[in-house]
């Protein structure tokens, strides 16, 4: 019986900007067991990174949690002080970011930056920290680790830098690793290597991973569960199989449709999702995806759709599902 590692309930988060309140997260709920790999999929601005950052208390100013709770590894995150959060960051939960080129400090050596997090959270002395850092570099598949320890970030390739970031993230054996678009800035071949590495490490160390990406191809291989986000809301949630073979939300369907497949024999046109993302300053009263939805109904424009369960593990927020139920009941409320 695996333990619940992460329990986010009805999280609402807004950015209080000079232009107004930007409602970035609108009632987001996520539950993760230990050892699980969850994929969060969505386009830019959907709130996927904001959700992940809020777990670590890294929400950028002027963002604030305005509702809901975050429970992680026994901590009530949204109630914790900055002091307390610092003990967890890099320690029980780590994150690797999108752009490895800029995520490392250019004026310090690789060794310095890895040892920094080890010395911060453990009782190891300098020598032990050094050894551990070398071990980590080997773990993430970097050859000649002692040599690398003395090198600077600009001397390493993009792929190697991302491996270093992974090494830093894993240094204190976190329970949860958050990967925010870790391969977007890398070549496709390197991408595959990094993802393979992550799966390998997950199996070895038994940690959970949240994989944030806009690329459905990545989640297909790695993740057991997928959350599809749009405009600060989870619009569909299910196992990988359920999402890929039985998508229920029009947005999910659109995402799946827009993936070009090598197997397409005839020259099929790429199918984009029409329209532009929603204005988060003045979000519409109804379903945020409505203006871009092919099957948009009148009620979609005025009322936010509720969550409808499809199976025990699969649910989606769409009026079409409500319509199905409605029709089944014979058209009477």
């Amino acid at each position, binding site marked *: 019986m695996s333990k619940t590692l992460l329990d986010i309930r009805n999280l609402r988060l807004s950015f209080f900007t000079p232009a107004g309140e930007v409602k970035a997260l609108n009632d987001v709920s996520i539950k993760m067991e230990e050892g699980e790999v969850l994929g969060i999929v969505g386009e830019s601005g959907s709130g996927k990174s904001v959700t992940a950052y809020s777990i670590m208390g890294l929400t950028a100013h002027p963002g604030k949690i305005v509702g809901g709770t975050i429970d992680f590894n026994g901590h009530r995150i949204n109630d914790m002080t900055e002091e307390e959060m610092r003990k967890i960051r890099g320690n029980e939960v780590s994150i690797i970011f999108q752009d490895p080129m800029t995520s490392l400090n250019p004026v310090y050596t690789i060794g310095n930056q890895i040892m920094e997090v080890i010395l911060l959270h453990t009782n190891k002395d300098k020598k032990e920290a050094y050894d551990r850092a070398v071990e980590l570099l080997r773990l993430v598949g970097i050859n000649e680790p002692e040599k690398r320890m003395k090198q600077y970030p600009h001397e390493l390739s993009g792929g190697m830098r991302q491996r270093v970031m992974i090494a830093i993230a894993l240094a204190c054996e976190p329970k949860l690793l958050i990967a925010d678009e870790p391969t977007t800035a890398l070549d496709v071949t390197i991408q595959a290597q990094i993802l393979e590495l992550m799966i390998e490490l997950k199996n070895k160390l038994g940690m959970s991973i949240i994989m944030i990406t806009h690329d459905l191809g990545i989640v297909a291989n790695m993740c057991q569960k997928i959350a599809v986000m749009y405009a600060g809301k989870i619009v569909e949630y299910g196992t990988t199989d359920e999402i890929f073979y039985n998508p229920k939300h029009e947005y999910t369907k659109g995402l799946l449709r827009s993936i070009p497949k090598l197997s397409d024999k005839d020259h099929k046109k790429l199918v984009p999702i029409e329209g532009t993302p929603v204005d988060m300053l003045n979000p*519409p009263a109804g379903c945020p995806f*409505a203006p871009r939805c092919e099957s948009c109904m*009148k009620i979609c*424009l005025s009322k936010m759709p*509720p*969550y409808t369960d499809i199976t025990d593990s699969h649910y989606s927020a769409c009026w079409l599902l409500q*319509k199905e139920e*409605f029709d089944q009941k014979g058209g009477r*409320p």
Partner: protein
Amino acid sequence: MTEKKNPFSFQLDASDFLPADKEEKQGLVVMRQSVSFWRDGLRRFRKNKIAMVSLVVIILIMIFAFVMPSFYPYSYEQQIRGSENLAPMEYSAEELALIEQGIDVFPHILGTDSLGRDTMVRLMMGSRISLLVGIVASILVLLIGSIYGSVAGYFGGKVDMIMMRLVDIIYTVPDILIIILLMVTLKYPLQNLADTVPAFSWINTIGVGLICIFIVFALLYWVGMARIVRSQILTLKEQEFVTAAKALGAGHGRIIRKHLLTNCMGTLIVTTTLQIPSSIFTESFLSFIGIGVAAPMPSLGSMAAQAIGGITSYPYRLLAPAIMISLIILSFNLIGDGLRDAFDPKLKN
């Protein structure tokens, strides 16, 4: 895991589930107009209150310096006997006598100096000199620098290398030292020229000192601008619209003028505007140490220098040019900053 809402609570009916039409969906989509580069930049500049205020201040100072002296009852070199060292608004004995007789005597608002010259009108002339130097020098820098820089950047290769070596040398030379030396020594040949060759007699009307300053700036200060323009051109010339222009048969000059320089306009404007206070600063510095425009033409710097001696008894003589020069430099700086914020696309948010 899900909050299964009771459909009853929504009061749904069949009509809710009818498909929505295009117009209803359009209403929720927000479109942003596209604006032209200039209009957008000017709009942003106008929103910048500090920059607008500075612009107004400069315009007022320009009126003060260029227009008012024509209407002022005193002139800058006019020495009024008996009116030496007057305090602000004070009248000399002779002037009081005139007033008794019913003649209007315009007051010396800022008093007079040791030679009986009205300080206010000298302040106006000094400001005029500063503004002239600032603007003319900056235009010279702009012209020379951008032509030099664009030629170097556009042609590249050996041409670029030689031209930039020259720039490096001039850049390394400590400019103030050379400027001071040039100011001191150029006077003579220039004066000679003005006196002997009739075609150059206009030099005397403007003043040898002023011409010296212009020459010196033109010789040394264009290098900064050249470097900036060159780097802009280097980035721009790789872009496709240049290849397109070439394919259409445009000549080098046309490409440089029409396509490349117009695209760096934003940077050029900002750099030139910020060059103005720098030039004014240098001019006042030179005048202060005694190497600037020649007496009796006043400069804000030389006025300040002369006022030090009487600092205890006549503080106004120091404060007036000091405040004026600081105000001019500050305003131009703020306008330049405002222009940079308005036209720099990188800072757009």
